């Protein structure tokens, strides 16, 4: 009984303290903290401008390199992705960021993370391998397309023309990495109960789910039997973001900075530095597909 009273008193005291702090305009000070932090960060970046670019957070460095690459003609860029498997902790944040960015429906995934376990106790280890589209320089998926709906664009990224694709899935069959999925027209919300007005109700959430994504810088609202429903879909290195100077969603969300992206034709770029390391490898190199996704092991 005494304990309960003490706890109640404690909570009451805490509430009073918060109230007093707010009353004393402390709220403004607290709210100003993120702005101060941002200002401090911007100041540090400004200083870094004059110093070596390597001092920057890799995200900021890659963003600047991206903007620099965008000054060049598209055909002179060579977008590559480097994934440091030693830094990947298997959080799947990149997978989810990709799903959110591209509003991927059930059964469509661009960047799963392969989770493998090796050894027997006590010598056990796990390996996480994020697997985006490899954007191969010799892609087996493009020549099989009967209507040239999938091809390498001038930046070397393998893209899909949603309005041209007939949905034969020949490209899915041809991909040695299983990097393409087909959109069968499902939605996450269709099984939800109808609860109009509630944030979790189908009416509200379906409105969000049906709203357009912006892959390939085009709006693609989710309308029954309209592309991309019925199409082959795949990772496109977030070209719609890259085009406006933003890094792919999987890169910015990687908490371990394990995923790097940039123009390998820029000798000063982070990715150019990484792809020339001796511990770099690519998946199924023996096939000669020349993937543009490199792994550091």
């Amino acid at each position, binding site marked *: 009984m005494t304990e309960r009273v003490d706890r109640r008193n404690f909570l009451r005291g805490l509430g009073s303290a918060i109230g007093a702090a707010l009353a004393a305009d402390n709220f403004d000070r607290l709210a100003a903290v993120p702005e101060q932090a941002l200002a401090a960060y911007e100041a540090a970046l400004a200083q870094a401008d004059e110093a070596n670019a390597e001092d920057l957070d890799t995200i900021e460095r890659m963003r600047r390199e991206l903007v620099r690459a965008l000054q060049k003609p598209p055909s002179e860029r060579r977008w590559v992705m480097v994934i440091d498997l030693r830094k990947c902790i298997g959080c799947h944040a990149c997978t989810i960021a990709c799903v959110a960015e591209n509003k991927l429906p059930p059964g469509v995934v661009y960047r799963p993370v*392969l989770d493998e376990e090796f050894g027997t106790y006590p010598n056990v280890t796990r390996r996480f391998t994020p697997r985006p589209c490899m954007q191969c320089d010799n892609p087996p998926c493009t020549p099989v397309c009967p209507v040239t709906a999938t091809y390498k664009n001038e930046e070397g990224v393998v893209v899909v023309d949603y309005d041209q694709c007939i949905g034969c899935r020949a490209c899915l069959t041809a991909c040695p990495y299983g990097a393409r999925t087909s959109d069968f027209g499902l939605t996450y919300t269709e099984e939800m109960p109808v609860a109009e007005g509630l944030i979790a109700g189908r009416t509200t959430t379906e409105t969000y789910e049906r709203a357009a994504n912006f892959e390939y810088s085009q709006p693609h609202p989710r309308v029954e039997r309209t592309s991309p429903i019925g199409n082959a879909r795949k990772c496109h290195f977030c070209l719609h973001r890259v085009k406006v100077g933003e890094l792919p969603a999987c890169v910015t969300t990687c908490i371990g900075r394990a995923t790097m992206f940039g123009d390998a034709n820029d000798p000063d770029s982070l990715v150019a530095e990484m792809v020339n390391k001796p511990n770099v490898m690519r998946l199924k190199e023996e096939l000669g597909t020349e993937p543009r996704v490199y792994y550091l092991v």
Partner: protein
Amino acid sequence: MTKRIVYVLGILAVVVGTYGFYSRLFVGEREVNYGSYVTWGLWVAMYLFFAGVASGSMMVATLDYLFEIPLFKGTGKYALWGAMVTLPAALISIGMDLGHMERIWKVYLRPNLNSLLAQMVWGYTLLGVVILVALWLVVRSSGGKPTRVFKLVMVIGLVMAIFVSGGVGALLGVNASRMVWHVGLLPAQFPIFSLATGVALLLTILALFTSNNDPHRSQQMRVLGIATILLLVVKTYILWADFSMSLYSGVPQNVDAINQVLYGPYWWSFWIVQIVLGTIIPIIVLVVPSLARNRLLVGLIGILVLVGFAAARANIVFPALSVPELEGLATAFSGPHLNFDYFPSLMEWSVTIGVVGLATLAYLLGIDRLPFLKDTTEVAR
């Protein structure tokens, strides 16, 4: 009586198929079990099968209209009509499989002719035209000797039938990442499979649906029966060559795919349907002269051979796709249509049954209603 029963079965099959057609055309691909990993399912297997029967029937028709073998006089029109009804069945099956079937015109107007798929669409369309022209010439010739033009059409038809049926094998074989498909033997074996199904179809038709007015009918059936035996033996040898090469190579992806067929989820389709029902029983029945003289039995054996070859096509398609391309891919992300275990859904079966029913009814209506297909006095010599 047999024909009536088959009519009823055909109508029932179409009724069953109505559900599948409705679901596919008005609901979409939600209810299918193929997906992003097992990318091609029952409908693609049936496309390969029906397309094979069509090109095989074209090959068989040349016995009458190109090579003018006296014993087969009068049988060519049945084979050509068989090709005529099975080709649309193939196209319906593959059309249902397309995510955007309304865009099929793009393959004609904006094709990538380096793609084997585009080549097959063009190839089978042209084969369809050749079959139509051949049928028109049959009508015009009224049972007379084939003209030079007719023979030329049949030569074109024969060459095209061999190439397009090999082409569907190449359609799978060019996928270098699917090691079990990527063998030169694959496109080579498809024309043999096609010929076998063409022969089996004609055997079934002659045994079940034609009258006895041709005194050489039993001899025709005997020769077609022996041809079926030979082709089944060749098929089995190819199967042995294919499987043993893959198994002895020891490459895990190959071995896994073959093990899927032999001991995996498709074992019954291979051992029971393809080997026992589709190969061993037909060989036994067709080898024993007393059994091989029973028309009803021979007709049913023809159907068993066809079913066995349909299973064989499926056993080529699914198992190769059921092996993950990368270790860990199967469990990396879960969701509908992201599965390496495939068994056709009710809706997929429904569509396939409906297609079989439509083809059966079309064939029977043709031989009952089309004047040039009705039994005539045209007999073998």
